[in-house]
C-alpha cells in the first residue's frame, strides 16, 4: 500500500458518509444540550461525548441523570442501548483486511452510520479489499469529527434556544429516525411494539426498571416470533443495519 493509495482510500471513506452527515448534526447538538441539562459542565459534557461516542445512549443517559435515576440503572441503560455494537463488531471485523491501524481504534470509532455504509459498499465490492481498512477509518473519523463539533455547538449555543421551541422533542425524533427504517419485518415490529407498550405500562416503576424489563421482553418476543415463523430464515442482521441509512 502506498501513502497516496492510503490517502485516497481515507478520503473516499470520508466522502461516502456525506449523505448521512446532515442527519447527525441536530442529533449531536441535542445530545450536547441534554448533557448540560443533566447538570454537566460544558467540558464534562464534551468529554462525555468523546468517551461514550454513541448518541442514543448519550441522550438517554443524560435524561436519566436529569430525572435522578439510580447510577447503576443509568449504566445498565447505556450498556443495553449499545449492545448492538457487538453485532456490528462481529460483522465489520470479518470484513476488514489486516492493517497497521490499531484494532482498538477501529472499534472505538465505529458508528451505526459508518458500519451501515461501509458494510454495504464492501459487500457490493465497491471498495478494493486492500483499501478497506483506510476507507473504513476515513468514514468513521469524519463521523467522529462532525459528531464532536456539533455536540460542541449544542453545548455552546443550546442554552440560548428558548424552551418554547420544544427542541427537546428532537430527541424522540432522532430515535424515531433511527428505529423506524429498521422495522423491516414482522418480528422486528413485534420487538418494537412489545418494548414500547411495556415501557409505557411500566414507566412508573422505580429506578427506571421499566426500560430494562421492556427492552429484554421486547428482544425476547422478537426473537421468539422469528423462531416461530420459521426455523431456517436467513440471518439478516447485516442487511438490517445497512439498509437503515440508505
Amino acid at each position, binding site marked *: 500500500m502506498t501513502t497516496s493509495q492510503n490517502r485516497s482510500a481515507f478520503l473516499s471513506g470520508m466522502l461516502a458518509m456525506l449523505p448521512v452527515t446532515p442527519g447527525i448534526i441536530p442529533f449531536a447538538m441535542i445530545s450536547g444540550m441534554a448533557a448540560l441539562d443533566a447538570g454537566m459542565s460544558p467540558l464534562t459534557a464534551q468529554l462525555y461525548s468523546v468517551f461514550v461516542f454513541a448518541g442514543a445512549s448519550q441522550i438517554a443517559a443524560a435524561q436519566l441523570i436529569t430525572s435522578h435515576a439510580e447510577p447503576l440503572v443509568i449504566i445498565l441503560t447505556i450498556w443495553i442501548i449499545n449492545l448492538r455494537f457487538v453485532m456490528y463488531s462481529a460483522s465489520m471485523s470479518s470484513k476488514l483486511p489486516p492493517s497497521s491501524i490499531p*484494532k482498538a481504534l477501529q472499534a472505538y470509532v465505529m458508528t451505526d452510520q459508518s458500519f451501515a455504509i461501509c458494510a454495504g459498499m464492501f459487500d457490493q465490492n465497491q471498495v478494493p479489499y486492500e483499501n478497506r481498512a483506510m476507507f473504513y477509518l476515513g468514514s468513521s473519523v469524519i463521523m467522529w469529527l462532525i459528531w464532536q463539533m456539533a455536540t460542541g455547538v449544542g453545548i455552546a449555543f443550546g442554552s440560548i434556544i428558548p424552551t418554547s421551541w*420544544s427542541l427537546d*422533542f428532537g430527541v424522540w*425524533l432522532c430515535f424515531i429516525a433511527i428505529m423506524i427504517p429498521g422495522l423491516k419485518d414482522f418480528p422486528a415490529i413485534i420487538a418494537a411494539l412489545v*418494548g414500547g407498550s411495556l*415501557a409505557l405500562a411500566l414507566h412508573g416503576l422505580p429506578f427506571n426498571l421499566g426500560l430494562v424489563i421492556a427492552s429484554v421482553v421486547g428482544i425476547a418476543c422478537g426473537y421468539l416470533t422469528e423462531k416461530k415463523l420459521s426455523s431456517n430464515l436467513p440471518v439478516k442482521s447485516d442487511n438490517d443495519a445497512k439498509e437503515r441509512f440508505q
Partner: protein
Amino acid sequence: MSLPTLWFVILAGSLGTFLARYSFFWLSGRKALPEEWIRILRFVPPAVLAALIVPGVIAPGLETENPLFNPRIIAALIAITIAWKSKNVMATFAFGMGALWLLQYVETLL
C-alpha cells in the same frame, strides 16, 4: 448527581460501550459470533429504542394535557410516517418539528 458519581457513570458506560465495539475485533476471526446471538442482537435496536420513545413521548402528557389533543403524540405519529416512507433522518426531523410547532400553535387557539 455528585461529580464522582457522574464520572463513575460516564466511565462505566464508556467502558461497556467500548467493549461491545471491541469484542470481535479482539477475537478477530478466532471465533465467529454464534448465529443464535446474531438473531437475538438484531432485536436490540427496535426493542430498546421503542422502549425509550413511547414513554418519552406519551408519559409527560398523561396527567396534564388534553388527552384528545396532544401535539407531541400527533407530531410523533407524523414523524413515524415520514421515517417509514423516506428513511431520511433530516426529513423526519424537519417534518416532526414542523408538525409539533404547528400543533402547539393550534392548541393555543383551542
